């Protein structure tokens, strides 16, 4: 056997081999892809199921989730908060009238001056929230109550007690309509301290009955129409 014969023999033997190997590779690839497809099937089915479940959950969530309220004041809120500022301005001006009197001892004066400063701070806070839309005008209640705040000590304390109750009632009414949480939070932080003002003023004026000290009967609220 010559090398060349052997070469040819080899050629003879190996000549068809590429065709067999190609077939084998194709079959192997086909089987592999088939196996992969079979193995993916449950996963794909599972994904289809999972998609359905997720959709159902989302639908449930959409039904139960409530809409978050806005933070910034709406146009209507601006009107209401402007009205609240006018009430606070009126209160500050009325305490200025009261502090013009000499009919108070040091403790009473300290309390009245502190409350006056608080109302001034409320005006500033509402101005900060409203910006240029803040009215910066005192409510007309100033004219109605100026005489009461210019009387003797006990009558001034009584008038101040009533004014604080009016402010609390007014702010609660405003809260019933405000949509934005920024304005509502500010009004809440104001009225909860004004509620305390009433108790302290009643105490200063010598009240001992719990109904008076706790302002059991809240005064009527001011409304923008009245203002």
């Amino acid at each position, binding site marked *: 056997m010559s090398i060349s014969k052997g070469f040819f023999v080899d050629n003879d033997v190996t000549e068809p081999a590429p065709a*067999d190997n190609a077939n084998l590779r194709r079959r192997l690839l086909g089987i592999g892809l088939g196996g992969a497809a079979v193995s993916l099937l449950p996963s794909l089915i599972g994904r289809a199921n999972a998609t359905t479940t997720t959709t159902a959950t989302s639908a449930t969530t959409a039904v139960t989730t409530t809409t978050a309220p806005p933070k910034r004041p709406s146009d209507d809120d601006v009107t209401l908060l402007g009205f609240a500022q006018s009430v606070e301005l009126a209160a500050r001006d009325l305490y200025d009238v009261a502090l013009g009197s000499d009919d108070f001892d040091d403790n009473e004066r300290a309390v009245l001056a502190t409350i*006056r400063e608080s109302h001034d701070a409320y005006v500033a806070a509402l101005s900060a929230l409203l910006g240029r839309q803040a009215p910066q005008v005192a409510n007309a209640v100033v004219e109605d109550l100026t005489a009461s705040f210019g009387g003797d000590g006990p009558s001034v304390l009584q008038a101040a007690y009533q004014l604080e109750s009016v402010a609390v009632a007014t702010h609660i009414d405003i809260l019933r309509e405000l949509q934005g949480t920024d304005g509502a939070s500010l009004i809440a932080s104001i*009225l909860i*301290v004004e509620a305390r003002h009433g108790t302290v003023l009643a105490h200063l004026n010598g009240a001992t009955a*719990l109904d008076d*000290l706790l302002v059991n009967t809240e005064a009527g609220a001011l409304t923008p129409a009245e203002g």
Partner: protein
Amino acid sequence: MSRHDNPSPLLGRRDVLRIGGFTVATATVISACGEHERGEVGRVGAVPTTIRLPDARTTNVALLRTASSLERSIINVYSQVIGNSDLLDPKYDDMATRFMQDHAGHAELFDQLTTDAGGTAWTCGNPKIDDVIINPIMKRITVGAEATAGAAAIEPSEDPHRDVLNFLHGLESLAGATYQSLVALFSDPTPRAEAMTVGARAARHAALLALTINPDRPGGLVNFADAVNAEPGSPPTTVAPPTTLQNIANQATGGSAVPTPTPTPTAQTEIPTVTAIPSQFGGLGAIQLVVGRGDENGTRLKINLETPSLNSFVFEYMTPSC
């Protein structure tokens, strides 16, 4: 006969093994990379199914139930001290009874609002506040604290009347602050207004308690710094130091805040003074409460009262157990 006459079989044993191994390996890799249920860790083998925690959503109903729970927790405290002269001076029974009646009315209001909002009213105290605030404080006042490996036992409060009044003041202040904080969380204006109606009443309770606890004037009436800022030229003549020990049980001094006579060798933790109008705006910060007798180092129990949050809301999935 050439080798063409005896071709090898199409698939030999080795080929079958190769194909089988390749298929298994491919399937394993693809399965591992495949999509699992979202949010769940893939698992191997048979294990028990885990139970998902219920959804804790901060809805209006959950907030209203929280309000009901807080009112009932406060009522529980009043019911423990009213009529118990060791804890509450009998002269304050009427005031405390009135406050408790107010809270009962508030709880009913919040129950009704909860029902109106489509929820189930919560008729128990707040579990978290009871466990973390109320029970430890009442225990420290009335029983003290047991000895531990590193600390000696602590006796009951040397002045339960003082501590109970301060505790009630803290709870009323907490209630007011809570309703103020809920205003920003409610999605609807109506419950905001109702909550603040109740919050205003709680704030007045707190103010009246402060006037009772702290007889300094104007220190018990208004924040001293605010008073000075209001009239810089004429500061109040009677000034309460910012922190003093209150001895309201000592009638000889009118219950006024006085420096500690320090009959004991170890100085006790100072108790913060309270004021009827503590600030210009309602605050939402922690209210520090100091109660009970001090330990061997004189350290009393300090607890920060904080408005309810995610860990103390009464969510809709919770069921009362009282």
